[in-house]
C-alpha cells in the first residue's frame, strides 16, 4: 500500500496531463456530436423526404463503422485527400461524428414523444416549422432527452481513450507509456482507473439529477 502511494505521488502529475487531454477530447467531441446529432434529428423529423432519407442513411453508416476505424480513416486516410489534421483534431472530429448517430436517435425519440396536439396548437397560432420546434417541441423534449444524454456523456468520457490509437496522449495512453517504461502495471493502471472513475462520478450524479427531475414532472 505504501508503495502504491509512493508511486502515486510520482505518477499522478504525469497522468494529470493525460486527464487534461481526456477532458479536451470529451468536451470537444460532446459539443460536436450534440450539434451534428441535432441536425440529423431535425432532418429526420422534417418531413422532407430527401432530408429524412439522407439523415437515416448517415446515421446507419456512422453506426455501422467502429469508432477506431473512423478515427484511423480521419487521421491516416484524409491526408491522402489533402486534409491533414492534428491527432487531437482528428480525435475530436472522429468521436464527434461517431457519437452524433446516437445523439440523433436520442433527440429524435425525445422530439417524437411530444404530443401531436402541441404541434397543432402551435400551428393554429400561426407558428411555422422552425418556430414550433424552438418554442414548443424542443423545450419539452429536453426533459425526455437529458437522462440518456447524460449516459452518452459518460460513454464518451470512457471512449475518449480510443483517441490513444491515433497518438493522442490522453489518460489511457499516458498510463500505458508510464507502465511500459516502469513495469509498475498495478500502480499505474489502478491510478488510471481511479481517475476515470473520479471523472465519471459527477456525470453519474448529474444523470441521477436529470432522471429525478424528469420523473417529478
Amino acid at each position, binding site marked *: 500500500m505504501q508503495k502504491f502511494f509512493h508511486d502515486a505521488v510520482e505518477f499522478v502529475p504525469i497522468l494529470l496531463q493525460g486527464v487534461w487531454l481526456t477532458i479536451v477530447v470529451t468536451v470537444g467531441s460532446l459539443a460536436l456530436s450534440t450539434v451534428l446529432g441535432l441536425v440529423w434529428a431535425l432532418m429526420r423529423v422534417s418531413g422532407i423526404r430527401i432530408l429524412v432519407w439522407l439523415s437515416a442513411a448517415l446515421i446507419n453508416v456512422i453506426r455501422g463503422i467502429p469508432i477506431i476505424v473512423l478515427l484511423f480513416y480521419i487521421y491516416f486516410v484524409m491526408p491522402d485527400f489533402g486534409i491533414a489534421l492534428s491527432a487531437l483534431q482528428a480525435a475530436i472530429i472522429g468521436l464527434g461524428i461517431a457519437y452524433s448517430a446516437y445523439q440523433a436517435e436520442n433527440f429524435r425519440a425525445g422530439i417524437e414523444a411530444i404530443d401531436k*396536439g402541441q404541434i*397543432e396548437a402551435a400551428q393554429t*397560432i*400561426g407558428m*411555422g416549422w422552425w418556430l414550433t420546434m424552438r418554442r414548443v417541441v424542443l423545450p419539452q423534449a429536453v426533459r425526455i432527452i437529458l437522462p440518456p444524454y447524460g449516459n452518452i456523456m459518460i460513454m464518451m468520457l470512457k471512449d475518449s481513450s480510443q483517441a490513444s490509437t491515433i497518438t493522442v496522449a490522453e489518460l489511457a495512453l499516458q498510463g500505458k507509456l508510464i507502465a511500459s517504461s516502469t513495469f509498475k502495471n498495478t500502480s499505474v493502471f489502478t491510478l488510471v482507473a481511479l481517475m476515470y472513475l473520479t471523472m465519471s462520478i459527477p456525470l453519474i450524479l448529474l444523470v441521477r439529477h436529470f432522471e429525478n427531475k424528469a420523473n417529478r414532472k
Partner: protein
Amino acid sequence: MIELNDVHKSFGKVEVLKGITASVAKSEVVCIIGPSGSGKSTILRCINGLESYDRGEISVEGARVDSNDRSIVAIRTQVSMVFQRFNLFPHRTALENVIEGPLYVKKEPHEQAIARGRALLAQVGLADKAEVHPPKLSGGQQQRVAIARALAMQPKAILFDEPTSALDPELVGDVLSVMRKLADDGMTMVVVTHEMGFARDVADRVLFIDGGVIVEQGAAKSVLNQPQHPRTQDFLRRVLHPL
C-alpha cells in the same frame, strides 16, 4: 367569410367528407352536430389547414386554404382553433401561453402583449391564474386559457372542436358562458359540439352531419326543435333522451 364548396376528404380508402358545401357569414355562430366519426372535426381541421382536403375548395375571406402553401400561416392567424384536449403548452404559464403567438408570430412589443394577455385572461375569468402552469389548472380553466390564447391572435373567426367534451360536467358551464359572451360580442364561430342547449340558445345555424354529408341544416331552433330528416330526428332523440 368561410366558404366550403363540395369538399371531399379521404383517410386512406375511407372517405370521411363526401362533398361538403357550406358557408359561414361574419359574426355568425354555426354549430356542427352529428354522431362520432361523421366528419365534424375533420371539417374544422380542413378549414385551418391542419388536414389537407382532396377535392373541392375552402376559402377564408376569399383566400384559398391550402395546407401545403405558405399562405396557410396568414389564414391561421385569422382563424384560431380551440381543441377538445386544450393543447396548452405545459412548460409555459397561462399568461405565456396567451402571449406566445402575439410575441413570436405577430412580433408585438413585449409590454403591449403582456397587457393584452392579462386583459384576455381577465375576460375569461382567470386574471388570478396568469402565473400558473396549465397542469395545475382544472380542465375548465385550461380550456378558458386556450380560448384566451386563440383570442390573443385577434382572429376574425374561431373554430371550436368539441371544446367541452373532455370536461367534468360541472365545469362545462364556465366554458360555455365564455363562448356565449364571445358570440354576443359578434365573434364568428364554428362550433363542433354535443351541447344541444348551447346550440339551441347561442347558434344562429346548425348543421347536422352524418356519414360525411350535411344531412340537414337551418336555423338552430328549427333544426333542433323540428328536425325534418329521420336521421336528424333519431340522433336528437338519442342525445336528448339517452335512456
